[in-house]
């Protein structure tokens, strides 16, 4: 059972990575325009906003 000492922290850590990944996508507003983002990948346009002055 000694292996639990490693396994439990590892499983919680991995879950935490998923959680923070999700929170990051939420913070950076990646769910605001799901349809547009799906289409944008098809265009060659330089799409790095905002455009430098």
């Amino acid at each position, binding site marked *: 059972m000694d292996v639990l000492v490693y396994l439990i922290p590892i499983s919680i850590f991995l879950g935490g990575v998923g959680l923070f990944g999700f929170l990051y996508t*939420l913070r950076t507003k990646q769910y605001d325009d799901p349809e*547009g983002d799906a289409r944008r990948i098809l265009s060659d346009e330089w799409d790095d906003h905002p455009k430098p002055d």
Partner: protein
Amino acid sequence: MAHVSISACPACNASPLAERIASDALVGDSVVLMLPTIHCSACIVNVERKLNAMTEVKDARVNLTLKRVTITTNCSVPIERFVAALAEIGYAAHELDPSLLAQSEMEKASRHLLTRLAVSGFAMMNVMLLSAAVWSGADGVTRDMFHWISAMIAVPATIYAGQPFFTSAWTALRARHLNMDVPISLAIFLALGTSLYETNLSGEHAYFDAAISLTFFLLAGRYLDHKTRSVARSAAQELSAMEVSRAIVRRDDADVTVNVKSLVVGDIVVVRPGARVPVDGDIIDGSSEVDRSILTGEIRPEFVDVEVKLHAGELNLTGPLLVRVTAVGRDTSLHQIAELVAIAESGRSKYTSIADKAARLYAPGVHILSALSFVFWYVYSADLRVSLNIASAVLIITCPCALGLAVPAVTTAASGRLYKKGLLIKSATALERLAQIDTVVFDKTGTLTNGMPQLVELPKTDALSLQIAASLASASMHPLSVALSKALTESGTNMANLTGVEEIPGYGVQGYFGGRLVKLGRAEWVGADAIDETATYLRLWEMEPITFAFQDALRDGAFELLKDIQHQVGDVHILSGDSEQAVAAIAARLQVINYAANEKPQGKAAYIAALQAQGKNVLMIGDGLNDTAALTAANVSISPASALDAARVASDVVFLGGRLDNLIGVVGLARQSQRRIKENFRIASFYNVIAVPIAMLGLATPFIAALAMSLSSITVTLNALRVR
């Protein structure tokens, strides 16, 4: 203007007038345009490339989901320039008033809910993994360690994620009444408390998994609920935001377009033919005809001249008018209607939603059961620890999560279906109220009809008269002329050759046929006897005048909708401010027996109140300012997207698209969703009937609690998806 010289944008300096307009038109330096026709990746690229190529534009970003583009500018630019630029590449653009798009607030709330949902979901999965080990037989030190790790994850996660319930329960308790959130919060806290206590004494049962999964399921319900409402609300807001009202003001002999909000009493406003009057005011120059149907329901255009009072919302038909503003904003005639609405609102009995009713039964019941089992076990065993454990097990196992999901899951499914049909459900309880409807009251003008006149029939007369009529009618943009022109073209009538054709605003059109005067217009002007219907009159030189009578054209699908309502729902009434004859004609065409004409706004509200006094549940469908009081008074109200903002605000449901047959089956769907909600409550109660005795006998283990909770939640959700 001193700041012009330091403006970063050369185009603005080039046109001082544009700058002046823009200073009124723009708040901040970001513009939102709606692009209803964009649909593909090429559209995004085209729009952004076009806008980014403009020197004034700092950044343009299309949102395809919302069909909008947000433009950030370096300086103030008139919006018309963007609209024109987009029109060049073939996209229709409408300006949205950003101040009316209270999107950010709702988005924030939804983001917070989603964050809490994610945190509780993460915690639930981890705790469940540990619980699975306990259920499959871990004991002694291992079990204690698992419990402690579960506690370390579940306690902070539950306290963070459960905040929406705790605050709501606290508010309810302070107002001294019980809502669904009180037993939920109590269950969560009691579960966490006893589990911590048990874990400390290395006990066998800990309910950390139950507490966190309860929070997760309930948050899922909350989130669904929020999402459904925010979709409908933002679409409704978009309708309001599209009506950025502009007025043309004459200042120092120059016409300037400004936002209506910036008008002050005494300003002189130019109202062009075909435009709506933006404010209340008196005519100081010009004569014309105005369509007051949106205020009164009367479709016959009225002749107006100098010193006649105009109201905001009326439609100017033929000649340009100069209007001196007498009232703005809150002081306009809209305000009087608003008072009526307030009166109607106070009369409307407060509707108790099914969920509230369930909570009223459920909340005390659960508390009593839990308290009873505590008292019983304490008396029986005199063991505080055992009795507390059992009391909290009862609270958890009564499974409020199925009850919490019962309503939102169904309303989400039903609203989604209605949204596809173009119906926006604005109010949370609208579906429930719709399900009870047995009487439907329609406004006539603008609701059953589309407010456009239609020639009743071609008068029996010679071809030459018709040809002359066609030529005269084609020279005017007056709705009657347009309708006449259309009818004559469809009948294959050619145009006669006329000379010197001119429109006399407010009266009609005249011209010369072979040197002889021909006139088409109002009865008194051509010298005809006016008939009691909407009509225009043609007079050829000294001959007898010819009458062209018009009726209001029905909206597409009106007939089918009324058939459906009479079969599926109940009585139909027509309630209009228009003349007796016009209303009777429409009622006869639609085979409706009950109608009332010449109704004032107060009369309409009173009519609805009288129906309600007979015990009817009334659905009001209307669009005009004169309907707002009635819309508020009715049990449920629907208005078309073309309605005035005030009417849309007063109604619970807005339907997009002009077709009335989109409304077919709405009441049926509402009834079906009510049935599903009731079924869901029954399923949830069924689980309770089985599980509560088990818990009260002290036989419930955390495993049984988790099983009951997940099973009932999943059944309830699946049942909700059956809404067709």
